[in-house]
């Protein structure tokens, strides 16, 4: 009997078959329900995930704005540089490609190892940077050998460049990668690799110069390979900035400063406050900071004890010395303590309490009125009148003439300096003011500290007959009118005629620097950097002796030109330059003559 006729077996089989079928249908139901969950219920979530899968955003960096001088000379711009990459999938042998490249541009051993290591980690189509910022001639060599060098890719980038190296470096500053805190700045936003201004105009105008980033939406596959560009929004170039500096004068001033280790020349246009020249030495070359590797250069800057990074014109603080005497004289005149006839006798020193206060001229100047005292820079005259004026009145006038202030100009880290008063001393040292300190302050020594720009502003206010001149560094199209400080009119007239005599009359301290082509007026200053001992003072001609550079006096000169209707005001400070008359005044003369010849 081969085939079963057992009905019972068939009914069992039918029942089992039915159960099995039911099981299968229910399983189909389960996967159907699962698919409903994924495809209908959670569909939105997966649609978003799907989109995120595909779309990457690539930032397009903007081109940084240029910086021009007042005559549209480019001071800072961007040059095209080239980066060389290797794409592993396009070369059979990375080592061979590196060897070929190495024959054109040296790739050092450690870089090479890093590249080889990286090439094992990244995906085959990902670019690996081999050389950064190569220039045109190197690029040409690579291009002409491109057939031998497999798998390289050259991309174009921009590098900041400064056309005049050291000339305006302090003012313009330089760019570099942002540090950790700077990355948070709002204008950097989504551009972590952006080079930003780190000093000077570059820093102050970061938001303007940077421009706006663009972006590229790209479709990428699961390996990150770019499939196509979906949309593109180009970046917007940053705004250009034009400064008031006249590069010609700036270069000229730096040339004059070359003879000295450190110093500053500031030249201002009195009528609008424009700073035409603000040179400071020593300076640095921003191009050498930007060009990597810069470690060696950085270290040389940081180790230089003259600190080339310091912008002496606004960050260097110096006792103004005799250039402060105008302020004291004006305070005396407006408070009725002196007039043109008031005379004091200079015997070379006066005593106050148990101390002696010396005039720079050991033998004394004899009888002096205010005009003579300024012209010959008699210290005793100012000792005498300061006793009567008092420090608080002097400091009030000094502030009116722009000293002890930080100006509203877009340059970082201005140093305020000190214009002392009773209140200031109480606050600072919790000590009361000593009368002798008034005397020392009256000749711009002691606590008094100013920066060269402040001295130039002071001189501008005097030269403009008391206009409240404010310095300006960014070129503006509209003219600016400064209001006049009426109460100083009369006093300024007297002071200006005295300043004329300083340069243009014999016995004037700057008479040797007088100019026939560009007559000017001014005031010398020589500020001590240390106390002069009695023994030194008694030794003959101690000022002419060769003293160690660091111990020499600072040389200062402030002045304006032309004498009638002045247009320019200058301040010259030469660190440890000896005396204002011998070192600073000649530089002022050169600057005035050069500027006049430019016929701006």
């Amino acid at each position, binding site marked *: 009997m081969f085939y*079963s006729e057992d009905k019972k077996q068939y009914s069992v*089989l039918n029942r089992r078959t039915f159960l099995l*079928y039911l099981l*299968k249908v229910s399983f*189909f139901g389960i*996967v159907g329900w699962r698919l409903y969950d994924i*495809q209908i219920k959670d569909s939105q979530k997966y*649609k978003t995930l799907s989109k995120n899968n595909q779309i990457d955003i690539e930032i397009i960096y903007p081109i940084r704005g240029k910086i021009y001088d007042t005559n549209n000379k480019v001071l800072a711009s961007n040059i095209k540089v080239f980066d060389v990459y290797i794409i592993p999938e396009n070369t059979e042998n990375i080592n061979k490609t590196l060897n070929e490249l190495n024959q054109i541009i040296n790739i050092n051993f450690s870089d090479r190892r890093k590249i080889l290591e990286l090439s094992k980690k990244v995906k085959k189509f990902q670019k690996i940077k081999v050389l950064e910022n190569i220039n045109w001639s190197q690029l040409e060599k690579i291009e002409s050998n491109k057939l031998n060098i497999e798998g390289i890719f050259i991309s174009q980038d921009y590098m900041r460049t400064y056309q005049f190296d050291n000339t305006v470096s302090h003012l313009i500053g330089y760019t570099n990668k942002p540090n950790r805190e700077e990355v948070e700045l709002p204008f950097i936003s989504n551009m972590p690799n952006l080079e930003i201004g780190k000093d000077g105009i570059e820093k102050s105008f970061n938001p303007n110069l940077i421009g706006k980033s663009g972006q590229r939406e790209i*479709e990428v596959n699961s390996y990150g390979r770019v499939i196509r560009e979906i949309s593109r929004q180009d970046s917007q170039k940053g705004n250009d900035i034009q400064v008031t500096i006249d590069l010609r004068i700036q270069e000229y001033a730096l040339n004059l400063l070359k003879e000295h280790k450190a110093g500053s020349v500031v030249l201002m246009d009195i009528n609008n406050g424009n700073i035409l020249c603000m040179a400071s030495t020593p300076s640095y070359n921003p191009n050498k900071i930007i060009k990597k590797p810069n470690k060696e250069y950085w270290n040389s800057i940081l180790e230089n004890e003259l600190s080339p990074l310091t912008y002496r014109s606004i960050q260097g603080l110096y006792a103004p010395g005799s250039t402060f005497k105008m302020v004291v004289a004006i305070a005396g005149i407006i408070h009725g303590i002196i007039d043109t006839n008031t005379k004091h006798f200079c015997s070379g020193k006066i005593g106050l309490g148990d101390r002696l206060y010396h005039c720079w001229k050991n033998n004394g100047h004899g009888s002096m009125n205010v005009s003579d005292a300024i012209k010959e820079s008699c210290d005793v005259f100012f000792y005498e009148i300061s006793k009567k004026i008092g420090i608080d009145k002097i400091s009030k006038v000094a502030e009116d003439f722009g000293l002890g202030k930080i100006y509203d100009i877009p340059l970082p880290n201005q140093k305020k300096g000190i214009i002392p008063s009773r209140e200031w001393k109480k606050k600072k040292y919790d000590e009361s003011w000593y009368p002798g300190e008034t005397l020392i302050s009256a000749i711009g020594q002691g606590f008094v500290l100013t920066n060269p720009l402040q001295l130039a502003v002071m001189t501008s206010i005097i030269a403009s007959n008391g206009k409240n001149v404010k310095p300006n560094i960014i070129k503006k199209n509209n003219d600016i009118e400064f209001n006049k400080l009426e109460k100083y009119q009369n006093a300024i007239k007297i002071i200006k005629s005295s300043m004329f005599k300083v340069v243009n009359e014999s016995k004037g301290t700057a008479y040797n620097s007088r100019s026939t082509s560009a007559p000017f007026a001014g005031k010398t200053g020589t500020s001590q950097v240390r106390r002069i001992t009695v023994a030194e003072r008694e030794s003959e001609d101690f000022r002419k002796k060769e003293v160690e550079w660091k111990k020499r006096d600072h040389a200062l000169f402030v002045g304006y030109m032309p004498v009638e209707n002045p247009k320019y005001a200058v301040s010259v400070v030469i660190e440890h330059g000896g005396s204002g008359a011998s070192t600073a005044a000649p530089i002022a003369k050169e600057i005035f003559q050069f500027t006049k010849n430019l016929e701006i």
Partner: protein
Amino acid sequence: MLNKIQNLNYLLIFLVILISFIGAAGLYSAAGGSYSPWASRHLIRLLVFIFLAIALALINIKYIYQFAYIFFVLSLLLLLSVELIGVFGKGATRWINLFGFSIQPSELIKITIILALARFYHDLKFDEIKRIKNLFFPILILFLPFALVVIQPDLGTALSIAMLGILILFASGIRIWKFVLGFFVLILSIPLSLNSLQPYQKDRIFSFLNPEADALGRGYQLIQSKIALGSGGLTGKGFLEGSQAYLQYLPEKQTDFIFTLIGEEFGFIGTMFIILLFLLLISVCFYVSIKSNHIFGRILSIGVGSNLFIYVIMNISMVSGLMPVVGIPLPLVSYGGSAMLAIIISIGLVLNAELNGSLKKLHNA
């Protein structure tokens, strides 16, 4: 002969062709809108295998019955030779080269298991089924291929062989309590078998338990396939518009994950349509089984239907995250010759069983 051709179950043939065409469309899309390399070969295979299946359908069922054990032994030897090649040759493999074709014996063996079990229960008197000693042979038929596939290691196929065996034994009328007992034995053996799993298989199980934990590693396939399915929504992104596959986010998009590509491009409507087609295909197999007048035909048809069911459920569960990714293709849709050959031949057997369903005498040789 002509009579037989007229009486072929054309619904079954139509369903096979329709599902295969959908597969070809998916493969065309997976290749980025190109017949090469997959769609064209898929269609050629369909054509060849369909004729093979019809030829098989026309053979007298008694020859198939006679050769059932021999087929099984032959395919077991093929499977064994894959093992031996793996041991003595080029390392672990699932493929063997036969007459110039690369064949995966683990796919073919499922069909010969069905044949062998069908014959065994056909030969066994109903009263004998109850006896424990008569469990020995069917379990041997299942265990030998199961063990060979496990050590390949091919977890998915091994699992599907085990499930196939259970379903067929259930259908043949084995007492329910034996299944319950077997179930407990299985549960108790889980810790043991976990220890003997290959590391990558453990990875697959763990990634199934928490795919998001390792989105770029083990869980990657699963997350991406769910994204593909889910982003398809109700109606899909449209033919050739599926970005997941096009952008290569989908792994193995032409084989095990083809269903997700179809789900992305044709949406819930598309996936439901395929599921219903498969349900219909399986239903036809069951219909043939019920109609058959001999146990051989019955078990054969139920076995083929169950085999299809296991493929479909495992594949869809896998890509939709209901079970670990174990590497099971979607029948007739996924690219791959061996599985397609096995499936279409098994359909040929069902066609044959229907044509010979009312045969009164089936002689033992």
